[in-house]
C-alpha cells in the first residue's frame, strides 16, 4: 500500500507540473485583466490536437511541435482578446463569462465537426519507456512533460521578471491607471497577455499528448482543474498556480487510488467545491 501510495504521489506530482503550467496561463489572464477564461480547457485540447495532427500527418515528434502550439495558441488568444473580450472588458462579469463560454462551445464542437468523436492517441517510440526510482516506476513521457513544464514556467517567469514587456504586463496587472501614467499602452498589453496565457496552455497540451487521449470533449475537466488550482493558489498569483498545480496533481492521483477508479473525477470536482467554499481567496490569501 505504501509503495502504491508513493507511486501515486510521484505520478500525480509529475502531472501537477503540467497542471501548473496550464493554470499559470489562466492566472496570468485573470491577473492582468480580471477575465475568467472558461475556454481554457478547450485551448488545452487545441494544443493536444495540434501536436497530434502534426505527428499523425507529418510524423513530427510531439516535443518538436511545441513551438507550433505555442505560436498558434498565442495568435488565437491574442485575437480572442482583441475582438471578443476587449469590447466588454469593463462590462459586467456575466458578459465575459458568457463570451468565453461561447468560445469554448465553438472550439470543442469545431473539433468534433472536423475530426469526429473518436478517441485519438499518439504512440511514439518512447511512449512506453519507464524510469525506475527505487520502488517507484515513472513513465518517461510524464517525466519529460514535467521537466518541460517546469522549464516553460521558468521561461515565463524570466519573461515577466526580466524583460520590458514582462514588467509592463506586471505593471498593468498591478495598477492599470498607474501603468497608463508611466506611458504603458495598457490596451496593447491585454491581447499580448491573453496570447501568452493561451500559449502556456497550448504548450501544456502538446506536453501531455504522448500519454493522454485526445477527444473533442477533453476540455471541461481541464478547465475545472485549472480553476481549482488558481483559486487554491490565489487568483492572479503565478507562484500560487505552480504550487496549486502540484497539490492538485497529487490530490487527484491519490484520490484516484483511495476511491474506486470510476470515481476519479469525483475527487477533483469535490476538491473544486471544497476550495470554493473554504478557500475562495486561496491557501495564502486572507
Amino acid at each position, binding site marked *: 500500500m505504501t509503495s502504491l501510495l508513493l507511486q501515486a504521489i510521484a505520478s500525480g506530482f509529475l502531472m501537477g507540473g503540467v497542471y501548473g503550467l496550464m493554470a499559470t496561463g489562466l492566472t496570468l489572464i485573470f491577473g492582468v485583466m480580471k477575465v*475568467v477564461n472558461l475556454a481554457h480547457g478547450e485551448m488545452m485540447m487545441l494544443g493536444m490536437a495540434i501536436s497530434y495532427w502534426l505527428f499523425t500527418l507529418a510524423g513530427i515528434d510531439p516535443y518538436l511541435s511545441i513551438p507550433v502550439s505555442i505560436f498558434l495558441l498565442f495568435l488565437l488568444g491574442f485575437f480572442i482578446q482583441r475582438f*471578443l473580450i476587449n*469590447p*466588454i472588458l469593463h*462590462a459586467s*462579469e*456575466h*458578459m465575459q*463569462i*458568457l*463570451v468565453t*463560454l*461561447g*468560445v*469554448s*462551445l*465553438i472550439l*470543442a*464542437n*469545431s*473539433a*468534433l*465537426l472536423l475530426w*469526429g*468523436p473518436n478517441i485519438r492517441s499518439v504512440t511514439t517510440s518512447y511512449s512506453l519507456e519507464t524510469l525506475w526510482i527505487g520502488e517507484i516506476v515513472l513513465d518517461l513521457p510524464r517525466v519529460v512533460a514535467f521537466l518541460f513544464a517546469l522549464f516553460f514556467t521558468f521561461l515565463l517567469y524570466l519573461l515577466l521578471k526580466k524583460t520590458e514587456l514582462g514588467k509592463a504586463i506586471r505593471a498593468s496587472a498591478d495598477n492599470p491607471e498607474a501603468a497608463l501614467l508611466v506611458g504603458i499602452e495598457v490596451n496593447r498589453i491585454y491581447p499580448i497577455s491573453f496570447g501568452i496565457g493561451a500559449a502556456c496552455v497550448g504548450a501544456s497540451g502538446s506536453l501531455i499528448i504522448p500519454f493522454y487521449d485526445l477527444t*473533442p470533449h477533453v476540455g*471541461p475537466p481541464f478547465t*475545472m482543474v485549472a*480553476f481549482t488550482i488558481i483559486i487554491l493558489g490565489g487568483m492572479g498569483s503565478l507562484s500560487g498556480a505552480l504550487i496549486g498545480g502540484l497539490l492538485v496533481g497529487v490530490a487527484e492521483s491519490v484520490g484516484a487510488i483511495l476511491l*474506486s477508479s*470510476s*470515481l476519479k*473525477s*469525483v475527487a477533483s*470536482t*469535490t476538491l*473544486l*467545491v471544497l476550495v*470554493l*467554499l*473554504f478557500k*475562495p481567496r486561496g491557501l495564502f490569501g486572507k
Partner: protein
Amino acid sequence: MKYVPVLFGLAIFLILPVVVDSYFLTILISIFYYAYLSSCWNILGGYAGQLSLGHAAFFGIGAYTSSLLFMKWQITPWLGMWVGALLATVFALFMGSLSFRFGLRGFYFVLITWAFAELLRLITLSLDVLGGPTGIYISVHTSPWQFQFSGRGPYYYIILGLTIFILIISHKLEASKPGFYFKAIRENELAAEGSGVATARYKLLALALSAFLTALGGTFYAQYLKYIDPETTLGVSLSIEIMIRALVGGSGTPFGPLIGSFILTPLSELSRTYFTKGGLEGLPLIIYGAVLIFIVLFLPQGVATWMKEKIAGYKNR
C-alpha cells in the same frame, strides 16, 4: 383588450396539434419544453441575477427520482414528480446556503453550480442502483395514470400547460415584492441590502423556486422519452441549453425564454436532423457558441427587449 392577442395566440397553439404532422409536433413540444425549463432558470438567473451553470442538477434529480420510484415501486410519476421537485429543492437549498453563506457570487457562483451538477453526474455514472452510464429505460404501460400516453398530443398539451403556468408565475412575480427584491439583488446587491432586502434569504428563495419547477420538467422529459441517462439529464450541455434560451430571448423578462426558445429550438432541431445525418455533428453547438457571443456583444439585453425598443421606436415615429 390587451389580453386579446394573448388569447388569440393561445387558441392557435391549442388547435395546432390537430392540423400539423408528427414531426412538426415534436418540434413544438421541444420548443415549449425548453421554453419551460429556460423560464425556470430565468427566475434565478434572469430576475435574481445569479447565473447558474448547473440547472441540469435539478432537472436530473426530478427525472431520476420519478423514474426510480416508478420502476422500483411502481409509484406513478404524477406523484413522483413532486417528490423529485422536493428533493431538488432540498439539494438547491443545501448548495445555495453553502455558497451564499460563504459569500460566493458572480463567477464563483457559476463555478460552484457547475461543480455540484458535475458531481451529481459523476456519482450517477458510477452507481449501479441509478443505472450507471447506461441510464434507465422506463417500461411502457401506456396509461394516463402512469403519465404515459399514446401519441404525442397529450404530451404537447401537458408541456403547453406547464409553459403557460410558468409564464403566469413570471408575470405575477414581476409585480410582487419578491420579484422586485430579486431584481434589486440582481441590479445592486449592496444597495438592496441597504434598502432592507434580506438578500441571502431572497437568493435562496429564487434558487429553491427555480429548482423546484425545473425538476418537474425533468419528470416530463423522462416520461416523454422513456429513457434517461447521466449525460443528457445531468450534463453541462443541458445546463447551457437551458440558460442560452433565456439569454438570447432576454433574461429577466417574462417572455424572453419563450422567444429565445422559438428562435433556438427549431434551429437546433433542424440542424440536428440534417447536419448530424450529413456527418456534421457539432455544428448546432458551434452555432450556439456564435449566437451566445453575438448576443453578448451586440444585443446584451436579449431579443425581447430589443424588439420592445424597436416597436416603441416605431410607434413614436
